[in-house]
């Protein structure tokens, strides 16, 4: 084992594939000498040259669009957007092109591309640099959407994402880049669609992903002092979704709290609530509760942002309502 930060885990996954496969390349805004806005690609241009780690103009449309064209024409591009919020500028290229091409063309075009999308709030970046937009992405057939929560998953899932023949949206929570974690000496691919049970418990299941895994674990720790036994599931992959792990846990606990940093209205956790209610309803003995951000843009002022985003206390309160 070794210790890497979340950012280093992401980088390590990309490095391994780039060493292995000459058709893997990275492009995005300031990913070269500058090392990416959050330093994730730091040093990679020195190792792989500017032929494979390429700075683009500030043109999100063509960053995603060129990834689509390059993937259709034989490469395995990793496109980095500086913030998931900037996806709006390239949304046609993602939604109408990347996600649709294989299907529209009768399965005859491959689309092996990864789009890295720094997401989430908590860094005082206000309304246009702090959003969590995974619900937009999971809504689109043709996109895989993953959200690793630690360095080991970041590295292992990156290997799988690059190897995948489909567009994979690789979401990263930017408040976690410096977070350290244990990573195996030999990184192996982690299959997409496999959740991880981070804490076993018998009374209530918290299903979450990304940064909120840590909030959920803290909440579970707090509640254990009151004798409440909480299970925490880290989805890791939003689509494909690991229903088996959800089912097993719901059958065990009968109570579910869903947690996400998205604004609550229309967020991806609403979909999970619907799946549980449609498919596992008779295992439930309490209403499914959702903990999300307030339905507001993300405000700048620290006190306001902290108020809007969900935290471990919100999770504690939700759990207390149903146990």
């Amino acid at each position, binding site marked *: 084992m070794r210790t890497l930060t979340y950012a280093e885990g992401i980088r390590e996954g990309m490095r391994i594939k780039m060493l292995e496969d000459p*058709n893997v*390349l990275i492009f995005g805004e300031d990913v070269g000498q500058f090392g990416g806005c959050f330093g994730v690609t730091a040093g990679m241009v020195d190792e792989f040259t500017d*032929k494979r780690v*390429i700075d*683009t*103009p500030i*043109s999100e*449309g*063509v960053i*995603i*669009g*060129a*990834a*689509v*064209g*390059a*993937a*259709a*024409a*034989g*490469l395995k*591009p990793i496109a980095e957007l500086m913030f998931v919020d900037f996806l709006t500028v390239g949304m*046609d*290229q993602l939604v*109408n*092109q990347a996600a649709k*091409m*294989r*299907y*529209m*063309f*009768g*399965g*005859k*075009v*491959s689309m092996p591309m990864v789009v890295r999308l720094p997401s989430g709030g908590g860094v005082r970046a206000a309304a246009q640099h702090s959003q969590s937009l995974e619900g937009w992405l999971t809504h689109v*057939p*043709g996109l*895989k959407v993953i959200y690793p929560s630690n360095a080991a998953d970041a590295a292992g899932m990156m290997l799988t994402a690059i190897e*995948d*023949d*489909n567009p994979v949206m690789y979401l990263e929570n930017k408040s976690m880049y410096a977070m350290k974690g244990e990573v195996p000496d030999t990184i192996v691919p982690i299959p997409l669609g496999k959740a991880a049970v981070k804490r076993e418990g018998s009374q209530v299941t918290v299903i979450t992903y990304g940064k909120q895994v840590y909030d959920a674990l803290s909440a579970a720790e707090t509640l254990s002092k009151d004798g409440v036994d909480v299970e925490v599931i880290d989805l890791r992959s939003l689509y*494909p979704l690991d229903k088996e792990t959800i089912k097993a846990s719901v059958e065990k606990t009968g109570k579910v709290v869903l947690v996400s940093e998205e604004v609550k209205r229309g967020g991806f956790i609403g979909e999970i609530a619907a799946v549980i209610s*449609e498919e596992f309803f008779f295992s439930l003995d309490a209403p499914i509760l959702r903990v999300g951000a307030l339905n507001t843009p993300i405000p700048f002022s620290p006190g306001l942002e902290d108020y809007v985003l969900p935290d471990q206390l919100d999770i504690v309160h939700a759990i207390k309502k149903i146990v």
Partner: protein
Amino acid sequence: MKLSNEKILSMYENMLKIRKFEERAMILFSEGQIPGFVHLYIGEEAVATGACANLNEDDFITSTHRGHGHIVSKGGDLNLMMAELFGKETGYCKGKGGSMHIADATKGILGANGIVGAGHNIAAGAGLSAKYRGTEQVCVCFFGDASTNQSTFHESMNLSSIWKLPVVYVCENNGYGISMSQERQMAVKNISDRATAYNIPGVTVDGNDVFAVYEAVEEAVKRARKQQGPTLVECKTYRHRGHFEGDPTIYRAASELQEWLEKDPVKRMESFLVENKVATLEEIEALINKIETEVSNAVKFAQDSPYPAVEQAVQDIFSDIVEEVKIR
């Protein structure tokens, strides 16, 4: 430019193929045999023909909603095209794409596209792939005049220029973005002027003259293969039909259409063939009959083919996941 008679005849044959395919599609659509909507390429045949006559099988093209002419010119199979227009299982896309989404990766056809301007950026990506892999492949990006007002045009031209990507931008300026005439939608007369902003060559040619298109694209392809970067070739042309079949074309004068009918690229080519003794009228007649038979065979192939089974609807979304079917 000195083209062999054989090459000239193959270009004529290609133009005929597009014309006859489109004329038949027009009738089949009006009869209700083709669902959805179709955007016909009639009148613009010289552009796709002249441009693609410069390409190899492993070169790429990106296309538009008015894509049939591009697909034919890049070697598309008429049977598979027609079956796709019918929505049949045997079509290019197994009936999942239709007229606006025909692609053939084996021939470098990266797809017709229903979003105006989407091909620009995809073409830059294909060009990046060619350059990155160190091949001499090029990508011809076909697009209409109106798509040059989309942000993708700017993004793609800028990127291709700074990275010297092997992309040839072929603008089919047919004078209208649906109902809006060029002078109402942009302040330049020649779209090739827009090349100046990217410090790349921009030329305007008569898009109804297949040789003029061929020559301009030949030069552009040479530059691209030599890693000298992109070129913008504007081909001024006209669509004889409306934006889509059923468009009443109230936005343009009958006299304007008449003027362009007199410049019909197919008839013009036929006159050239006879005047220059490349082919006799009899030989032309024989070729027309041959192509009409090919198109008729394609129609029969489409008509005789089955529709896709409903199970097909949940396949091909991903390479490895078949979407589950739930009670709705």
